[in-house]
């Protein structure tokens, strides 16, 4: 089972300065995620959900503690190495889609592949496959402004999976979507988890969205509540 551990966070602590105040975002978090899990992190605003995701993606660094992802101590990696590592192993989905407006859907999805050694032709094929998986084969040459919010988020998912990462981190992926689009996104994420074995860590406020996960973890005031804890009031 040791090999199936994809995330192991030990005493993870994050503080930052906001104006004159010292804010504790995460407090001595202990977390393990097994390969193939779909974990939803819930909690009120400011509880540290997104910070936890950023630390696992090595987008941010903890004040203290240790994070091992896929067996690597990511805090030991230098900027270039961590960028390469993130490109290979992490797919990130944002609440506000964050597509590049001057690029078509296909070009947006190809972005992570620009950092690989794939040829132009191979990149196009991979992007087409990823867009096919999210049901947007017929929208490949559309610009973000020509797509609906749900379609934009599907492009963002295609971008997150195009380099075939082991872990997908989704920060409120349905937060900006209507109910129907949100359901489509959650269905895609469930399918990626179930059919493609992707480990998914999703931050959400929405209990309905969280129900698609195999496990729900709650955070409160920077503390990760024990597994099986009920949703705090």
């Amino acid at each position, binding site marked *: 089972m040791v090999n199936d551990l994809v995330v192991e966070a030990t005493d993870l602590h994050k503080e930052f300065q906001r104006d004159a105040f010292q804010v504790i975002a995460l407090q001595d978090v202990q977390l393990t995620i097994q390969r193939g899990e779909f974990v939803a992190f819930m909690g009120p605003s400011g509880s540290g959900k997104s910070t936890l995701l*950023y630390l696992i993606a090595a987008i941010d660094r903890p004040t203290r503690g240790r994070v091992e992802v896929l067996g690597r101590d990511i805090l030991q990696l230098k900027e270039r190495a961590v*960028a390469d590592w993130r490109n290979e192993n992490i797919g*990130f989905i*944002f609440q506000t889609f*964050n597509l590049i407006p*001057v690029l078509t859907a296909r070009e947006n999805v190809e972005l*992570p592949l*620009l*950092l690989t050694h794939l040829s132009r032709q191979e990149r196009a094929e991979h992007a087409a496959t990823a867009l096919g998986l999210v049901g947007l084969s017929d929208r490949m040459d559309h610009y973000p402004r020509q797509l609906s919010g749900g379609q934009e988020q599907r492009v963002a998912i295609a971008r997150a999976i195009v380099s075939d990462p082991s872990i997908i981190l989704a920060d409120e992926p349905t937060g900006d979507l209507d109910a129907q689009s949100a359901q489509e996104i959650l269905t895609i994420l469930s399918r990626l988890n179930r059919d493609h074995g992707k480990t998914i860590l999703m931050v959400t406020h929405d209990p309905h969205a969280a129900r698609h996960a195999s496990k729900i973890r709650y955070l409160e005031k920077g503390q990760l509540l024990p597994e099986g804890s009920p949703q705090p009031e």
Partner: protein
Amino acid sequence: MFRDTLGLALKNALRNRRRTLLTVASISISLFLLGVLLSVYQAFYHQEGPPEQALRLVTRNRVSLTFSLPEYYEQQIRKVPGVRELVPTSWFGGVYIDNRPENFFPRFATDPERIFEVYKEFTVPPEQLQVFQSERTAAAVGKTLAERLSFKLGQRVTIKGDIYPMDLELTIRAIFESDVENQDFAMYFHRKYLEEGLPQSRRGMVGTFGILADSAEAVPRIAKQIDDLYRNSERQTKTETERAFQLSFVSMLGNVKVFLLSICGALVFTILLVAANTMGMSVRERITEIGVLRTLGFTSGRVLSMIVAEAVLISLAGGLLGCGLAWGASGFLRQSQLMLSGLSFSPPVFLISLSIALAIGILSSLVPALGATRLPITSALRHTG
């Protein structure tokens, strides 16, 4: 990878087309002005003369060009060791048809036997030269001048005197050419003809002596020896190389070198500010995108190079357009004779202008790009701008 970076940079450059077009336009206009000014600077200070020019000196009155020298100086100057040949010339001035600029051209009274000996880069058909030398009212005109004013062999030309109290009735007997652009935009006629028409009191004077030295090494010594000859005379001389003589006209305008370089510097600084402002705005609008790119695995260096490439593309587009305009304007000014005859937008000026455009692109984007790429990814992602 380079092609992909360039492709992304191009797409980003075209993101806000109106802003990009305005920036390209402002850079191109500035580079156009800079190109013309650099061309003027080059024409004044770095223009290559014909090889023969290195052997030539000009002797004039020490006080001013408007004062003349006695023609008997010629015999004494000729004895200075190293002087191979010399020719007296006097600026006639005068008016051809009317005072409009298109009818203006330089007219010199000279010695027809020796002018083509001193100015060896002038080529003239031998039969025409013979007629020019033998006929007292003959004139030789340069090919460029002849083409501009449609002068033909045998044509009679009247020049109304202004500096000199006489009119010239000349017949064009020779058309000479020169390898040096626009050097053949002049007319020469017999000094004897001029002398005959002058009152006795004004005869026997010469504007300048053009001197051909034996070797380039002898030139400084000849200049010193000639001026030493007349150090205690009533009409002292100033002898200098032909190039220095030409530059003395420029110096009459004041410190043109500092003036031109100051304007060039101000122009470059202004373009830099305009470009930096544009790139600053462009980068600020995209900080979240920069955060996204870095989340996807793009390093700070890669993002930096994309932003710099974008700025370089914009400034090079402006630079190329400006260089094209400067090239056209220099050609127009040269053809129209409104400015320096040697004015040309040369390859060195093109390279300098383009290098300045390149430097502006890099410098204008470096500060905003460094600021944006050094921002922590989390701050970039949260940026609202």
